[in-house]
Every structure is written in structure tokens, then in C-alpha cells.
């Protein structure tokens, strides 16, 4: 069995069993009428059965199906930049923080400082005009 399938199957099995267990704690229903716990248990049970099927499935690992993240540094860096941008959401100065985020992200992905900064300012201004002024979405 493929390692990725093992991890996937195990994770889904755990989630399915957790759903069944948590569903038992929800109202079961009255007089044959299913309550709030009915569907979580049904979905959890189905998920657990399917996960067992995946865990028991036989298959050969192949190079193109192996679970590997190439260029992991850039992916992690991009994810970190995204997280930073998200954590700053709602702190005001939308145009400034968005322009800085875009410029940093582009620089990180190998673009020059000047075009990155220009792109950041232009895009953040366009988005601000379209959403905040055009559609009255409060971006601050």
C-alpha cells in the first residue's frame, strides 16, 4: 500500500470515528424521528468504512504517485507570507499592508523590487477602489 494512502486512510478513519462518537452526544431524536445526531453518525460511519477500504486496498507504489512536496522552501515561505497577511487583516491601512504583502510575495518569488512594489501599489489600489468604494465592502 502507498504511504500516502496509509496516512489518508488513517486520518479519515480517525475523523469518521470521531464523528460517530460526537454524534452519540447529540440529540438522537424522538419517536422514530431522527435528531441532530443522526446524520453525523451516518456520515461518520460511512467515512470510517470507506477509510478501512482505502487502508485495506492493495496497490503498488509508483514514482508519479508518491507523496512529496518539491520546492518545499518556497511553498512554506509563501504559506508564511499568506499567514502574516491574514493575521494583519482588519488592522486598517488596507492599501498599504496589501501593497507591502504583494511586493514581499513577488520579491520572494524572484521578481525585482521595483516592479514588485509598483504592482503591489497598483493592485491594492484597484482592489480597494473596486470593493471598498464600488461595492461598499469595508476592507479596513
Amino acid at each position, binding site marked *: 500500500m502507498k504511504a*500516502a*494512502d496509509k*496516512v*489518508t486512510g488513517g486520518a*479519515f478513519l480517525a*475523523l*469518521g470515528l470521531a*464523528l460517530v462518537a*460526537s454524534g452519540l452526544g*447529540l*440529540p438522537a431524536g424522538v419517536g*422514530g*424521528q*431522527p*435528531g*441532530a445526531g*443522526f*446524520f*453525523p453518525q451516518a*456520515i*461518520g460511519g*460511512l*467515512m470510517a468504512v*470507506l*477509510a478501512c*477500504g*482505502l487502508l485495506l*486496498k492493495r496497490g503498488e507504489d509508483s514514482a508519479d*504517485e508518491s*507523496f512529496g*512536496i*518539491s*520546492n*518545499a522552501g*518556497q*511553498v512554506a515561505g*509563501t*504559506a508564511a507570507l*499568506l*499567514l502574516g*497577511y*491574514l493575521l494583519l*487583516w*482588519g488592522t486598517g491601512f488596507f492599501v498599504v499592508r*496589501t501593497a507591502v504583502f*504583494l511586493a514581499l*510575495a*513577488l520579491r520572494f*518569488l*524572484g*521578481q525585482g523590487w521595483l516592479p514588485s512594489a509598483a*504592482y503591489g501599489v497598483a*493592485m*491594492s489600489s484597484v*482592489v480597494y477602489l473596486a*470593493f471598498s468604494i464600488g*461595492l461598499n*465592502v*469595508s*476592507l479596513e
Partner: protein
Amino acid sequence: MTADILAGLSAVLSLQVLGFLAVGVSLGAVFGSLPGLTATMGVAILTPLTFWVSPEQGLAMLLGIYCGAIPAGGIPAILINVPGTPASIATSWDGYPLARKGRAGLALGVNALASAAGQLTSILFLAFLAFPIASFALKFGPAEYFGLALLGISLMAGVSGRHVLKGLLAGTLGLALALVGLDPMTAYPRYTFGMSEFLDGVSFVPVMIGLFGLAEVLVQVSERHAGKASPPSAIGRVLPRTEEARTMLGATFAGATVGTMVGAVPAAGGDIGSVIAWEQARRASKDKAAFGKGSLQGLAASCSACNAAIGGAMTTMLTLGIPGDAVSAILIGALLIHGIQPGPLLFENRQEFVFSIVFLLVFASLLILGIGLLGARPLARILRVPAPWLWTGIVLFGTVGAYALNNTVADVWAMYAAGVAGFLFRKARIPLGPLVLGLILGPMMESNLRRALILSRGDWLVLLARPILVAFLAGTVLSLLWPLLRAHRSASKPNQRAVSNV
């Protein structure tokens, strides 16, 4: 009747009405092509503006938005693998691979042509078969709705090729996510972890943007230096050749029929219709292996079906006064404010108004066809933008689009979480389509199954006496077993690889 047709036509053949229609179609194209902005949002925002104009002018603008947004949702699905609307998920399955092969122009051209064909076909159904379609849709009770939702999810999981099990697991994960929030029947809070943001449940639009948009960006960043990500800068021709058009004809009209029928069913729309039509086209095609890898037939079927759902939804709305989807629910409100009550009496008393709507839909379809074909080449140039610029643009528009839905940062967190999950799922070869469909259809499935069980006093066997439900259940079983049997049969033929990128 001829007098009513002519009266309906003359009511819309005015510069003001056509102007409102053109504005509506253009705004709809903007709303549809920006992930996070939906046709529902566009119609809802602009409905108040129509109260100061005549019913024809107001309706022209609102119908224009509706007809413009749905085909435009296919544009980002094709160019950047981010469906602009939930109905265009299936469009990305063949549209995006075509763009990656340097045929973005053709994919956009087919999107425009098949969308217009789907809309026009469904309008014909509306004009001539409105009542039979609506009465078929009215036969749907809770059990049938449950069966329809189940069929939709299983079809999507079933087309996951060698990964049917993973497709089903993704579908159940979507259903599990749909459990978050208030129980649809008793309003009992479930899996909210004490956070009020979760009471409304997990919004599917941010999840969709994350799974398809952010995850795609992360995948491309990951494959950038691995030599796998090839920037598709070529655009190619826009119009299909005669032989290509001929192969797409059957899929387009079958898709339009499926889309109209599904769209006519209240609360079911282009999202389910396009999946069913795509799978139907794949089964009917001689070149099944091309589906999911850039098949023109697959693209035509899905585009046609998701647009035909408009005519289906309008049919139910006008004949019965029941909204076929969220947009038609808002349209009913707008009509009522203008003093027009949708329902059977509308066809008796205001037949000329019904024909006005028919002609407005026809003109809107032709307008969006023109915009789609003329705009295909300039739009496809987006692929020539350097990849990092495109990635940051997708992230920015996705983030702001997710936030704009409810003005809440929780939706942005949901989008980012879905993006990371989608990236890991892509790496683990877990199909994303069933997850989104499970999330969309989960509440419909649960509430209708529970309603059906209440009506049958908990007796499951009573449900099996309903022929439409039995047909859906049979379709569900077939859709799941067929790929497994095919995979078993083709185990000795390693060159026959099934579709796996849905």
C-alpha cells in the same frame, strides 16, 4: 397568442430596455468572472436600483446579470482553475487542461458557444414546455431531493477514475463540513466549538476559492522549479473547426436538456446539472479517456448544462411561483415589488409579459455570446502575465472575494485553511470536486432525508416505493460500481488511464 408574442417583443425592443440588459449582462460578466462574487450577490445588490424603472427595464437588468454571470464563471475556471461560480466547477475539469495545452482561446470560445446554446435551448423549453417541466419538478418530495443530491455526489466521486474511494471520502468530508452550524431541522448547534462564526455553517464559496484557487497557486509554486509547471502562454484560435463543432453538438444539447430538467427542480441548479451532464457526455463519448484532460465534448456538456439551468429555474419560477435557485428567489421578490405575481395565473393574465421575459433571455444569451467570443482573446492574454504576478493576483482577489461575502474574517480563514488542505489533497491524489459538492449539497441531503423519514414514520422501505427515488438510487449505485468494474477490467491494460483530476 401571436399578438401576445408581438406585444412581448415590442415591449423589450426599446433602447432603454436593451440598454439596461446590456448593462446587466456586462455587470453579470464581472460578477461571474471574479471568484467570490456570485450571480446571487450581483442580483441582490442591484435589485433596489430597479425599483425606480419599469418592470421590463428592471427585469432586463436583473436577468442580464443572471445570464451574464453564469457563463462568465467559466472564464476563471478555464484560465486559472478557479471556478467563478459553483456551477462552473465541471467547466474547469476540461477547460483548464485545454488552457494548459495552449488552447485557452478555444476553451473560452467553446464556453461562450455552449453557454449560449444551453441558455437558448432552455429558453425554448421555457417557451413551449413550461408546464410539463414544472409539473415533473413538482413530483419531487423530500425523498427525491435526497436521491438527487446523493446521485450528484456519487457521480462526482464516480468520475474520479482510479481514485473512486478517495473521491467518496472527499464527498463524505464535504458532507461532514456541512454539519457545522445549526441543525437544519431543529436548529441545535453542532460542531461550532462555542464560536458564533460557525453558527451559519461553513460557507462553500470561500472553501471553493481556497480548494481550487489558493491550492492551485501552492501547487504551481511547488512545481515551479521541478520542471512540471509550464506556463501556458499560447492562446490559439477561438472558434472550433467544423468537425470539432460536429463532435460537440450531441454533448451540448444533451447537456442543455439535463441542465434544464435539473434547473427546474427547486433548490437544484447548475452545480449538480453540469456534473451529471459531464458524466453523461463521457459515457456517450467514443473518446472517454480524453475527459478530464481537455475534452471539448466534456467542456461543451458542462458549460451548456450549467447555463441551461437558468431556463429551468425560470420555468419553475414563472409557472409555479417557486424559486428554482437563489437568484430566482430574489427575482420573485423583485417581480412582486413591481406588482407581478409569478405563478399559473401569470400565463393566463399576462402572457405578453411572459414572452417579454423569454425575449429578454434570448437577447441576453446573444449578448453574452458576443461578449464571450469577442472577449476570449483579450481575456486569454491573462495567461501571458508572469506566473508570480498571476499567483499574487489570484490570492488577493480570492482573499477579498471571500471576505466580501459576509464581511467576516472567518471566511478568509476558511479559504486559507481550504487552500492548504486542497494543496495536501492534490498531493495525496484526493479529488476536490466531491468535497465541494458534498459541502453544497449536505444540508439539502440531510434535511430531506430526515423529512422523508419523518413522513414515512421511520420506515426506510416505504421510501423505496417512490419510482423517481429508486431511479436516482439505481443511478447512484451504477455510477459507483461502473468505474470500479472498468478499473478492474482495464487492470491488464495499463495505458487506459481514467480521469483523475476532478
